[in-house]
């Protein structure tokens, strides 16, 4: 099984196409929409986590490219600066994917980057600037 997080930019002509449906149905991929900005008659942006057999994954991505969709790997990254973190935990309730976890015993925060979908909620919520976005 392989996993990839990709950013799709597609022209407005493709906005109405059920691309995610095809990825699931035709290529047997598990998809998770991390972020989306899709507006009728405009360009679309979709951040997907795609999981599946390595070969299916490659074929799925080829399918998207052939449709005229620009594909990039997820380049933005959330960095958690443990030194600056005071372990207050205010990031916990605002994170949609539970990427921040508080250990029940130590009451200290840890960050699971794998779960992060770069929604940036935590950036504005952290009072100590312990969370940064890297480009």
């Amino acid at each position: 099984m392989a996993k990839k997080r990709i950013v799709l930019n597609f022209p407005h002509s493709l906005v109405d196409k059920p691309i995610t449906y095809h990825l699931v149905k035709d290529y047997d991929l598990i998809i998770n929409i991390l972020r989306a900005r899709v507006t009728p008659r405009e360009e679309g942006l979709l951040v997907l986590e795609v999981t599946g057999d390595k070969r299916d994954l490659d074929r799925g991505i080829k399918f998207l490219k052939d449709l005229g969709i620009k594909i990039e790997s997820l380049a933005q990254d959330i960095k958690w600066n443990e030194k600056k973190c005071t372990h207050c935990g205010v990031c916990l309730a605002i994170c949609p994917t539970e990427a921040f976890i508080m250990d029940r015993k130590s009451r200290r925060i840890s960050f699971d980057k794998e779960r992060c979908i770069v929604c940036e909620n935590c950036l504005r919520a952290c009072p100590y600037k312990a969370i940064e976005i890297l480009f």
Partner: protein
Amino acid sequence: MAKTIKEINEKIRKGKAVVVTAEEIIDLVEKKGVKAVAKEVDVVTTGTFGPMCSSGVYLNLGHAKPKIKLGGGKAYLNDVPVYTGFAAVDVYLGATALPDDDPRNKVYPGEFKYGGGHVIEDLVAGKDVRLKATAYGTDCYPRKEIETLINIKDLNEVVLYNPRNAYQNYNVAVNLSDRVIYTYMGVLQPNLGNANYCSAGQLSPLLNDPYYETIGIGTRIFLGGAIGYVAWSGTQHNPTVKRTKNGVPKAPAGTVAVIGDLKKMSPDWLVGTTFTGYGVTSTVGIGIPIPILNEKILKYTAVKDSQIYAQIVDYSEAYPKGLPGSLGEVNYEQLTSGKIRVKGKEVPAAGLSSYAKAREIAQILKGWIEKGKFLLTEPVEYLPSVDSGQTFKPLKERPVK
């Protein structure tokens, strides 16, 4: 088996005092019972580490040559305005002060990258800070401007004086509206998207001495990593709120004003803090020791999160409009579990106050006392308690003309 502070101090001096934290005392009392533990334990240490807006420092800068009278003039530290309403070279810097040119919420939500709380952190960290000031000039203070780097180690006095810290309990903030709101309780997602609370709960100083029977003016405390003192009751001190049967306030109640020497403190415990869309502040570490003078006082310190309740308040409308009413109450066991129920909905809950740091403070203070480095004090005056009738009043508006 009542003890006196004098007796406890005698044991501390000999390195024989038994000290436990407000967290450790809970299990101890559950295991051994109040009677036995009241005999055994001498001091319970508490801690809290959260954003506390009414905080600040006053600095005596020393005289320049020729002399300049900052009093009545304008002065800035790293572009953050300080107050000059004092003698020539005393100024006060508050945690929430912002540079004159900060856009604030003009670009909403404001970023509030740097303000008073950050200057305090830089000062205490030993960083150079830029002083810029203008004055009107007098015969004895002829100079009219100055710009220089200053460093905490070269100044005469740098005193942390916080008019209100260590709130005894606080609200749980939620957002009933359909848009994100940015508050001093953090970012609140629409439609009960999250719930933020702000208390160290069972570790919090005033929740362990609910009627202020040991804490008062002159109480020696842990403040910002050094020794400090309770100087006065804090502003908005409000002992007369609803309480549980065991005396614990169910809403924001008592507060303290605290004082200490910033030169001895550490940036670990005085952290510059930003609330997006709201402003800046300082996150302050405070720990207060509670002498176990008798069984009643011990019982109070054994309070646990499941016995401490807070009110859920809507910060989209009820709070800003000053409307009374709570959406319900929850206890800190529920809050720290990370999920509470509000209006039938499961809502993720998170704290603004660091429990891990509060615990660390209680442990440090415990260490100081165990090693005989920190003696307890008898307050010279107690804080107003329930019998004072003191309440937190709104501002009555009266037209000027």
